[in-house]
């Protein structure tokens, strides 16, 4: 009797184990790493939790989803992924700048997606121009997460003090987009504001205080190119000199302060620009807006205060005659170490919908990535997004190339040289070109 009972129990135990194994085989672990500034960019990661059950039901599996959101500096964030990839501990999905494709694709840390993208109809609706910045060596390596514009923010408050009418102020974005109001006009307006005592010298125009993508649009605005038709790095010396003349000239004329590079982002730059009473023109990014509304002018009315006192426009036309901006899409990439890339892609596809992307776009003021978002009520009714979406028609992007960091660091050296007065425009261009040639060797062509 006891023997029978033991055998029955053993059998039941074996059955239980087998059942457990069967369930375990259907459970897959997916880790997602997102760089996001809380709270306005939380949806970059949190959207995955929203669709987890839906994807589980579709695929008939149990997903053990692990979301890791942090707001580390870009350099540390990217290095962590490189080291984790080599250690075999990379997340399944990494969110980073599209330019990382240029380094991570040749290193084999991420996988190409050309063959699997057609399997998910959600990706069909992505704004076509965004795919351009996701290519490397003829293949697509990431799915756009968001888009943005890097506009000039102008202080309506100070323009009113300068005597501008409401019509002049409200029509400025249109005039800029049409190429009627140029960068030279912007500088002249800033000089006039200083001359008339509306603002202090140095506060006519602020660009970002550290290296970053924005600086490239000044070079593009003067007809410069970073890649030739074959995808090789190039530098156009005339465009480079003209860019440095523009930046150095702004400092020399007192429109921009010579120590703008090095100003602390959070201690000085954001709190000053957000108040709208000190700086006339500031080159920033659309995502700055919710940051200002939440962290710097909440006590004055947040969004309402900003709408009342700050406007945004494309970067006014420079030598090319066309107003521009620059989009730096963040990108979901799938790690080559992922054991379940199909599940990872299914999760990305599930959040690539107007419903989910709108949450991120609205909360963080990043532009939509899907055509359908433009038609969605939530997006179209959003005053901020609807006022900026047209900028995607004028956008440019960084190149995806392993040598981009050397190129951009050398370019930034020239900017530092000319703005601090350590070199004139031609000298700054010589510094930048010499640095590029020293570090890139045959990998850079000077035109």
């Amino acid at each position, binding site marked *: 009797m006891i023997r029978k009972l033991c055998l029955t129990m053993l059998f039941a135990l074996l059955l239980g184990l087998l059942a457990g194994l069967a369930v375990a085989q259907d459970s897959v672990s997916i880790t997602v790493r997102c760089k996001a500034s809380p709270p306005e960019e939380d949806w970059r990661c949190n959207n995955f939790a929203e669709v987890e059950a839906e994807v589980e039901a579709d695929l008939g599996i149990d997903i053990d989803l692990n979301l890791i959101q942090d707001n580390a500096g870009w350099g540390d964030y990217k290095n962590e992924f490189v080291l984790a990839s080599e250690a075999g501990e990379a997340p399944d999905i990494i969110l980073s700048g599209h330019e990382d494709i*240029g380094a991570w694709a040749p290193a084999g840390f991420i996988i190409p997606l050309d063959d699997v993208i057609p399997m998910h109809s959600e990706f069909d609706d992505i704004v076509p121009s965004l795919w351009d910045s996701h290519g490397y060596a003829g293949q697509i390596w990431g799915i756009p997460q968001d888009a943005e514009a890097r506009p000039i923010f102008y202080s309506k408050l100070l323009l009113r003090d300068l005597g501008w009418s409401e019509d002049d102020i409200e029509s400025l974005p249109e005039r800029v987009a049409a190429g009627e109001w140029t960068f030279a006009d912007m500088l002249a307006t800033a000089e006039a504001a200083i001359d008339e005592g509306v603002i202090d010298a140095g506060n006519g125009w602020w660009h970002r205080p550290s290296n970053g993508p924005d600086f490239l649009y000044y070079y593009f605005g003067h007809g410069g190119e970073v890649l030739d038709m074959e995808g090789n790095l190039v530098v156009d010396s005339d465009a480079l000199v003209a860019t440095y003349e523009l930046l150095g000239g702004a400092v020399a004329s007192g429109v921009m302060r010579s120590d703008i590079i090095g100003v602390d982002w959070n201690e000085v730059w954001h709190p000053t620009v957000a108040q709208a009473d000190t700086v006339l023109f500031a080159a920033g990014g659309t995502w700055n807006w919710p940051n200002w509304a939440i962290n710097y002018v909440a006590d004055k009315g947040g969004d309402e205060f900003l709408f009342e006192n700050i406007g945004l426009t494309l970067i006014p036309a420079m030598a090319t005659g066309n107003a521009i901006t620059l989009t730096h899409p963040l990108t979901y990439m799938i790690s080559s170490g992922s054991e379940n890339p199909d599940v990872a892609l299914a999760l990305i596809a599930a959040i690539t919908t107007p419903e989910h992307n709108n949450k991120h776009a609205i909360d963080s003021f990043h532009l939509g990535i899907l055509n359908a978002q433009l038609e969605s009520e939530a997006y179209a009714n959003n005053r901020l997004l609807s006022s900026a979406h047209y900028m995607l028609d004028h956008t440019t992007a960084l190149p995806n190339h392993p040598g981009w960091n050397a190129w951009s*660091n050398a370019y930034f050296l020239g900017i530092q040289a000319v703005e601090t007065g*350590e070199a004139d425009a031609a000298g700054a261009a010589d510094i930048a070109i010499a*640095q590029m040639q020293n570090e890139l060797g045959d990998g850079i062509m000077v035109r």
Partner: protein
Amino acid sequence: MSEPVAKPKSSAALVQSRRNALRSYLGAYGFMAPAGVLVIIFFLIPVAIVLYLSVTNLASSNFTSDLAKMEFIGLKNYQTLLNDQFARKIFFNTIFYVLVTLSLFNVSLALIVSLLTTHIDRSAGFVFRALWILPRITSPVVYILIWKRMMAEAPFGILNQFNEFLGQPTYNYVATNPWVFVVVVNGFIGVSFGMIIFTSAIESIPKDLLNASLVDGSSRMQRIRYVILPLIRWPLLFVVTYQTLSLLTSFVEIQLLTDGGPGLYRTEVWSLTAYHRALSNYFGNAQWGYGSAFAVLLVMIGVVLAVIYMRVFRFDELVAEPRVEAL
């Protein structure tokens, strides 16, 4: 009369003597082994790896931890480094930073604080020394944040708020005088190390020597000059050596305060460049191989300086057997 002939050692005595010598050697090396293993694991092996990395083109775009898979490029990184138009500037920045911080703060101010706090009431001296240790025990990020808040431009900085309150002009202190703040910020941290060493050395001077000098009619200054300073010579030389090497490799506070700027590498030091190249880049694709070349040169400079210090300051005398024992 014949010379006395030394009695030859028996073979057993010879063996015993050799055994004793061997035991003595083994004992000495045995005691040094734990430290030796640590030096090998945490210094020699990393230096060898960094040396190897410096002759490869390792970057994020071809990153691997397999040494055999790294692409050997010979001395190309060193050639690039020597051709870098700012390498000379960064090198002299480093020399300037080390010399000024060391001489003004890590040694001089540390000595002054030690002398002052050992010549006042003992508990008051302890309180002052504890205050001077605060910069050392505060997290670098918090410490630099405090400095930034104090020195920020108007209307944000505390000092500038005082200036405005008093009707004085305001300044962008750090941007205008970056070296002053780089040296002061690091110097305040560096003072504590020398202060502790010097204070303990001064406290350990036999009181009868100090009292004797007073009985002989010396003033306090004379007692410092002719009694205390000669007696703390070795701690002084040790602090100079140790802090030189420490400053050569320190960069965290500079990175947090100025990140090597403003302008063209105005406050960039060698170790910060190695970090920027190998480990931190806004646009990714860090240059591990090239950054390692910077690090290798720093190690070489450190080793050369250490040897020079040991020779010039005659450290062998410091560790030599006391003469009274040798008599």
